[in-house]
């Protein structure tokens, strides 16, 4: 009886697990590709549909920049750069090697803005989306990799079909991210990183 009891205690006290299983558990790393894909497919569309109209954003920023930045922009870090998801309809006036010039309405006047088609880098989409919280990512490289993966989506899935058909004189609706330096705002140098592009005419 005593031997059975000791055997039972010993059996319940020892738990054998494969070393390879342990290694997998300890080596588990953040999967930026899967995370960004999920974010792109499941969460970003809702944010895009709520993107602020560029004209409304500029008007608010010109009257009350503090209000505009707090209402429409986001940034993961500390600093002067703020990011916003914007929506704008415009006329394509030039197609260059690295960008497309877009004429947009701003009240009674017209403004030319730049749509990036080659240099899709940086944190604009990640930060503007407001979907990533710095507190959830103690590894800085994970945050960098999210930006890189989101940018890759634009470079590989958004831009090639658009660039293949777009022509000068087309009207387009662009939803994308912008970076604004809150201390030195230069609206005439605004660059839009596209996330969704639609040719309407």
């Amino acid at each position, binding site marked *: 009886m005593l031997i059975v009891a000791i055997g039972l205690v010993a059996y319940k006290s020892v738990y054998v697990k494969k070393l390879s299983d342990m290694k997998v558990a300890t080596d588990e790393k953040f999967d930026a590709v899967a995370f960004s894909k999920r974010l792109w497919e499941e969460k970003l569309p809702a944010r895009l549909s709520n993107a602020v109209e560029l004209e409304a954003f500029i008007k608010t920023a010109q009257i009350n920049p503090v209000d505009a930045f707090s209402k429409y922009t986001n*940034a*993961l*870090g*500390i*600093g*002067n*750069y703020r990011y916003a998801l914007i929506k704008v309809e415009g006329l394509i006036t030039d197609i260059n090697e*690295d960008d497309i010039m877009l004429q947009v309405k701003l009240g009674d006047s017209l403004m030319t803005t730049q749509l990036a088609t080659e*240099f899709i*880098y*940086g*944190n604009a989409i990640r930060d503007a989306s407001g979907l990533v919280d*710095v*507190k959830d*990512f*103690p*590894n*800085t*490289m994970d*945050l*960098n990799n999210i*930006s*890189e993966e989101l940018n890759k989506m634009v470079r590989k899935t958004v831009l090639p079909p658009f660039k293949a058909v777009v022509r000068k004189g087309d009207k387009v609706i662009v939803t994308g991210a912008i970076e604004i*330096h809150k*201390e*030195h705002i230069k609206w005439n140098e605004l660059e839009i990183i596209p996330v969704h592009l639609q040719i309407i005419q």
Partner: protein
Amino acid sequence: MLKRLPYFLLLLSCFFIQCKSKSPADKKHKVAIVVSTLNNPWFVFLANTAADKAKALGYDAKIFDSQNNTALESDHFENIIVAGFEAILFNSTDADGSVANVLKAKAAGVPVFCMDREINSNTAATSQILSDSYSGSVAIAKYFTQQLNKKGNYVEILGIVGDNNTWARSKGFHSVVDNYPELKMVAQQSADFDRNKAMEVMESILQAHPNIDAVFCGNDGMAMGAYQALVSSGKAEKVKVFGFDGAEDVITAINENKVAATGMQFPKVMAETAAQFADEYIKGRRDFPQKIPVAVELVTFKNIRDYIAYGKK
């Protein structure tokens, strides 16, 4: 006897004043600033700004210079813990080697707030306020690629190989330029963030690779060293130099069109945020993000008027 009474009362009041000033309730709280080196103006600025902010928040602040020596840094931490400092604003000497010191402080209940230099632990420091070197280099690399029209031969001069910032800057840079196959890196060497070493490294590289179009350096000191080597070889007009930091001589050089660009860091923002966090910790806050990136801004000839050394105008 009556004549001596006022002197006696004065002496008595001095005694009470003295006693009062030594009461624990009125004792000033102390914050330590441990910095990797005071042999570099950038770190002097970081340390002094942190000390000034701590003093403005009502603390006694003392600066400790580790002289780029982890053992000396360890001695500082031990003395700081024994002396009863309540928080440490920390610029580490070594991403790995400094972790033990931070853990020692943590075990003693002293919070550590890292400034600018990262340590390789996500649990040792209370918070790390760090320049976003990777993203800053991405911005520099984008400008670099545009300036070179996506083709040409270039050199990369790295900082200290054991420092995280060295690789964050290099990786950020390559995350852009490596997408352009006609941009060819002909040499990549370390110059330890040192201006003189960078000059020597560049001189030697130029002998092997006389036809280069650009050089990307992991800090501004090395950018100036590389520029000096290019001047000596008569190539300064042809080769574009890119740095990182926002140091005074590079800001001047960009304004004179001698250096193409740099990434402006903000030591003031990092130092003041660290001091502010220490104050909040002492007052009871505990929910700090482990790492907070501080944006690095691209400075070129086009926007140079918006900037001064170590920050914006």
